[in-house]
Each structure stands twice: as C-alpha cells, then as structure tokens.
C-alpha cells in the first residue's frame, strides 16, 4: 500500500527547484521517470547473520532532475546505489525489489534481470557512476587519453582511433581541462583535475543517468563549488539526470531539485529541496539541517543530534530513529512507520507517526 502512495506522490510532486535555472527540455521532462527503484532490499551476508543495509526502498529519478540522497555513514545510501546498479561486491546481496530503467523509446527494462551481456552494454552507455574517492579510481599507469579512449573503444568498437582521440579531447574541454593534459598520468594532475577527468569519463557515452557517490568530499570548498557549477552547466547542456549521494545536506539544498533522506537503511523523508530546507517534517531531517553551523544570519546555538547512528546488526524496534528522537511517542516503538504522503502536504513523503497519511 505504501508503495502505491509513494509512487503517485513522486509523480504528482513538482520537483522543480524554483531557484535554480532550468532549460525548457528539463521542465517538460519532469514527471517522466528514467529510473525507478521499487522495493529494493539489500543484505550483507546470508542466513541468520545477515544485516539488512537497505530495506524496501522506493525511489524514482525523473528526467533532467538532480535527486539528492543524503544520510550519515552507514545509512545505506551508497549500498542503495550499488545494489540498484548491480555493482555490489559480496557479501552484499540484493534480496528483493526491481530497478526499472525507462529508455527513450521502448519498454522499461529491469536492471536486476539483465543478462551479463546486456548489463555490460547497458552500463556506462545508459548509466554511469562517479565513484566515491574518484580521485583514486583512475589507473595510475595509464594516461588520461588511454583511459578515456578505452571507454569509447569498448562500447563503440567501430569508431576510428583518431575519432576516439578527438572525442577524448572534447570531453576534457567539456570539464575545463586543457587538451595538452591528454598525455598526463593521473599523478601529474591535481585532485580537482582527477575528479573532473572522472566526470568526463562518466559522460563519455552521453548516458542518461549519472550516479555520483560523494564526488566532492575529498576536495576543498573552492574546488567543490567549481565542480558543482560545472556539473550544473553540463547537465543543462547534455540533459542527463543525476543521483547525487552525499552526507553534506547544505550542499544538496543548493544544488539538487529533490532530496531523499536515508536513515538506518530506509528513506525517511522525500521532498523538493527548498521545501525540505524550509520545513522538514521528519525529526531526523530537522536534526540534520540543524547540524550545520550557518555562515550567515544570526549565530544560533546548535545541538546536533544526541546519540549515535544505529547499529545495523541491532536495529531498534519500530522507528530506527526513535532512540535519538526528541519527539518520540508511543507508536514509535511499535512497527517502523511507512513512507506516506502526509496530510499536511501531499506533494512530499515522510515516514513518521507524527505525520500520518491523508
């Protein structure tokens, strides 16, 4: 029941962030899902020792949108992304759900049922990932050019070598790196440049979905802003959709259209970025938003969230956030609250007994 509610909530929601400039295509593309995650559950390990890292998660990424996925370490945000793209190394096991990809033409396909061959062709050409710590995911003994052309050669074997090289140069230009860096090895580039090479590589085949797992965490704020600006511009130019995973909620509020907040393997709140910032419904989102000291405005006394994140091996009964929640009351100890559209604002969804469904 909750799944139906959530799906329609997402479709009727207007994920448009009024504050950020949007191209006409992306506006008309709103509400058309590109990637739909339905009831995904991921375990680490099997049998009685198994730990459920992602629990029955529903998430829809619409065309041309930046969907922010926020949460603390251990909340399952990276596991969700890797589980959905079948990149999860053992002992991670996807135990249920489906991940539907909607191509421009044709019927939706389930990623979790693709054959290895299909998956290989699908990855990178339709969906690419910029990994966590991308700065270290380049091959140290190959030049940037070799790594960029490899991607193209693998997926489009018929292209001529010179064309691939030209495309590699074009990609570097796209992310603001000079052409003469093509022959550099990763260690000759700064952290920010390596990160941009990774982004260029992710865009090499013009995928429709890009998943970014903490792409700027290792960088300084100045470089972070530069890269985020560039991403926003590239997204306008090329029109892909982004799932942006980070623990930095203040960054997400500024750069994403819609934000989903995870806690203890479940999504606890989902709302357009500005609405979430202005009026968060779940006490956890509220706590998270009040964990960042503000750079402007009055200096407030901040408290953070008492306690520590839950241990997935020993989850509290009922709502996972209940032991740390300042507003916990009787029903919270019962069963985990379902993600529903709250009566007060049907344009978003929240999993909290304080906000029952309409």
């Amino acid at each position, binding site marked *: 029941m909750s799944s139906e509610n959530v799906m329609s909530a997402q479709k009727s929601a207007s994920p448009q*962030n009024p504050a950020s400039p949007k191209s006409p295509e992306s506006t008309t593309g709103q509400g058309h899902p590109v990637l739909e995650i339905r009831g995904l559950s991921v375990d680490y390990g099997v049998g009685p020792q198994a730990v459920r890292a992602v629990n029955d998660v529903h998430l829809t990424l619409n065309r041309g949108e930046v969907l922010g996925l926020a949460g603390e370490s251990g909340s399952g945000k990276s596991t969700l992304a890797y589980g959905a793209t079948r990149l999860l190394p053992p002992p991670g096991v996807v135990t249920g759900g489906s991940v539907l990809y909607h191509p421009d033409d044709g019927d939706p396909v389930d990623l979790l049922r693709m054959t290895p061959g299909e998956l290989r062709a699908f990855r990178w050409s339709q969906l690419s990932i910029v990994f966590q710590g991308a700065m270290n995911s380049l091959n140290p003994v190959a030049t940037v050019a070799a790594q960029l052309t490899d991607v193209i050669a693998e997926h489009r074997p018929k292209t001529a070598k010179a064309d691939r090289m030209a495309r590699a140069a074009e990609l570097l230009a796209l992310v603001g790196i000079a052409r003469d860096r093509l022959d550099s090895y990763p260690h000759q580039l700064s952290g920010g440049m390596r990160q941009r090479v990774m982004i260029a590589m992710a865009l090499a085949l013009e995928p429709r979905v890009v998943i970014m797992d903490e792409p700027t965490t290792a960088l300084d704020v100045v470089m972070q802003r530069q890269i985020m600006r560039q991403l926003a511009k590239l997204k306008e130019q090329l029109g892909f959709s982004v799932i942006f995973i980070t623990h930095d909620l203040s960054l997400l509020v500024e750069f994403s259209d819609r934000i989903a907040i995870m806690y203890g393997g479940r999504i606890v709140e989902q709302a357009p970025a500005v609405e979430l910032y202005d009026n968060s419904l779940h006490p956890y989102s509220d706590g998270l938003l009040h964990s960042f000291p503000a750079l402007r405005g009055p200096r407030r006394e901040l408290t953070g*969230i*008492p306690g520590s994140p839950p241990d997935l091996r020993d989850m509290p009964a009922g709502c996972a956030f209940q032991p740390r929640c300042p507003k916990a009351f009787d029903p919270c100890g019962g069963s985990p609250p379902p993600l529903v559209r709250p009566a007060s604002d049907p344009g978003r969804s929240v999993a909290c007994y304080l906000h029952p469904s309409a």
Partner: protein
Amino acid sequence: MTSEVVLEAEALTKHFPVRARGRAALSRGPKVVHAVDDVSLSLRRGRVTALVGESGSGKSTVARLLAQLYPRTGGDIRIGGVSTAVKGGGRHFKAYARRVQMIFQDPFASLNPVHTVRHHLTRALKIHGRYTGEESLDELLGRVQLTPASLYLEKYPHELSGGQRQRVSIARALAADPEALLADEPVSMLDVSIRLGVLNLLRDLKERLDLAVLYITHDIASARYFADETLVMYAGRMVEGGDSETVTQRPAHPYTHLLVHSAPDPERVRGGPAPYDDEDTGEPPSLIDPPSGCRFHPRCPKAMDVCRARVPERTLVGDAPDHWVACWLFDDEGKGEGKGTDAEAADIETTDIETTDIEISDVEAADVEAAAAEAQAPELEGAAP
C-alpha cells in the same frame, strides 16, 4: 580579549627538504617545500582560535610545530612568555607536552586498537604523574560526558562509535591537564549529526578549564560557530585574521572572500538564481616554488603589479579592532592614501547586501570606486588625519 597569552608563535617557518633524484640532484641548491612561512599567532586562555585554510595550506604543520612534533626552521615559539625549542622525546618534551596537548583528526587511527580505554587513559595519567587511582579515570571520562565510566573503561576502540572515540582521545589529552589544546580537524571525520556534540563539548571544556584552544578546520562556517578569533591561511602564509564574526561576515582579503563564497550555503536558494558563472578560480600553487610576492596573486581577481613583486605586510583594516589583513589593497604605501581601503570598503558593502556570489560585479564595482577615489586622492590626503 586581553586574557593571558598561553602559547605564542612568532614568524614561525617550516621548510621540508625535497629529496632530489636523478637529474634534479645535479641542479643547483636543495629544494624545499615552503610549508609554513612567517606565521605569527597567539593562543589566549579561555579562547578558541580557528585556523582556516584549504588542504595543503600548512595549517596542520602549524599545529605540529606548536606541539613541537617537528623542529622548526625559523621563528620562535613561546609558552608563557618563555621561548622553547624541544628536540626528541625526552624530559623536556614531556614537560612541554604537559602544558600543550594535541587532538588528531582521525580517532580511528589515533587510538591503539589492541588496548582498552582504561589503558589509554591510565597511561596518559601515569606519564604525566596525575594517576590517583580509579576515581581519576572516572573524572576524566565524566569531563567528556562518557558516563557512567564503567560502561566505557573496558571497551576497545572498535567497540566505540566515532564520536565516542574522539571523546576518548579528548579525555586522553585532558589527562595532562594542559593549558593549551591543539585540535587538528577534530570533527571532520565524524558523522555530521554528532559533530556539533563534540564541538560543544570542546567549548564547554574550554570554559570550565580555561583552556586556550587552537581549532584547525577547512570549514569556515564551523569556525564562525565555534571560535572567538579566526585566522585564514593560504599556501603557508597567514592572509587575514580577526574576530570570527568580522572575518566571516566582512572578509577583507580576496582569498577569504573566495573561501566564504565557496562554502555551501543553503540560504542561497532563497537569494534568487544561484550564480553559475564560468569563472575558473584556479588551484593552490606548488609550495616548492611558491609565487613571488603575495602567494595568492595568480588567482586573485584584483592582483596589481606590487602583488607580484613584494610580500604584503599585516595591515589593520579598521572596521573592527584587531581585524588585520595581509593584502596590498589595504596598504597605504602600496596604493596611495586611503584609496585601497575605500575601494575595499565599497566592495564589502556590496557583499553585505547581496549574499550571492558576485565576484565579477564586485571587481568592477571596486574598480569604479578605485577610479573615483583616485580622482579625489589629493583631497583625501588632505582630509586624512
């Protein structure tokens, strides 16, 4: 503001030698990394001083120099007014460590995984001669709000959460009953929801124990929240300093500007469209061969000839007491009477009104103002006291 100075650094300099290999070994002169150059700061009792900068700006090196973990290349470190230089880990170092303690960034790495909390704390207490039995452990854990102590004493680091681990390492630092605490990014490895808990604890300790705290961070918003005074470092040199509120709200140095405007700020979503200008803000320079003059000049939108030639001195800005900046824009000698300050004052006003990124229009406004000021320069000169 006028409380007693505990720890003081003057013209602190640290150069790390670079090992030359192959052909480079034959070239003239040994190369060095200019990690810290001419840094002066003082830590006062009961106050938090934040040191803000990008990675590689030398802020952690400053902390390690102050903790005497590295010998310094030049300058002086004074504790309680007495110049000290400690070498090695002997008696002198122990005496120094009793007064100055350090907290490291990574609580996962700074605690020994094969020892219990009890061992860590007992050892620290015994080394500093303050072990008086079980109750001293209880008291120490009580100070960092890990109560009841019996719940934590027998635990190994892996059994604790990140926040608890960092509290244990704070307790270990407090075991020496120090006068100064050097905290090197104490919360950047912790989960966002528990960072503030640790920062608030540090502030509480500072007040109760009258500690002088150096808080090193790359997050200028947390410096504003936690520190009384903020110093900004760029490429091994200090560029600006003053009261935290003044430095973050009315930054004077172009680099501090860049830093403040780059920090994520959710309030921007309310301030109209976010500015996605193409401006390439560049990258920090190599410290083996740092830029001549002001080290920020290759990235600075307001760079002048003098910036390339000479290193700017500290100049008081004058909008708040003790707000200083090392920038030629503010130097009378560098730009003529009052002119630089005028242009900058106009710039600061613009930024105050618009909270969004306005780097480009900023510069233009400053230029216009500067030109206007130039025209009036003789009058200004006459009017200046």
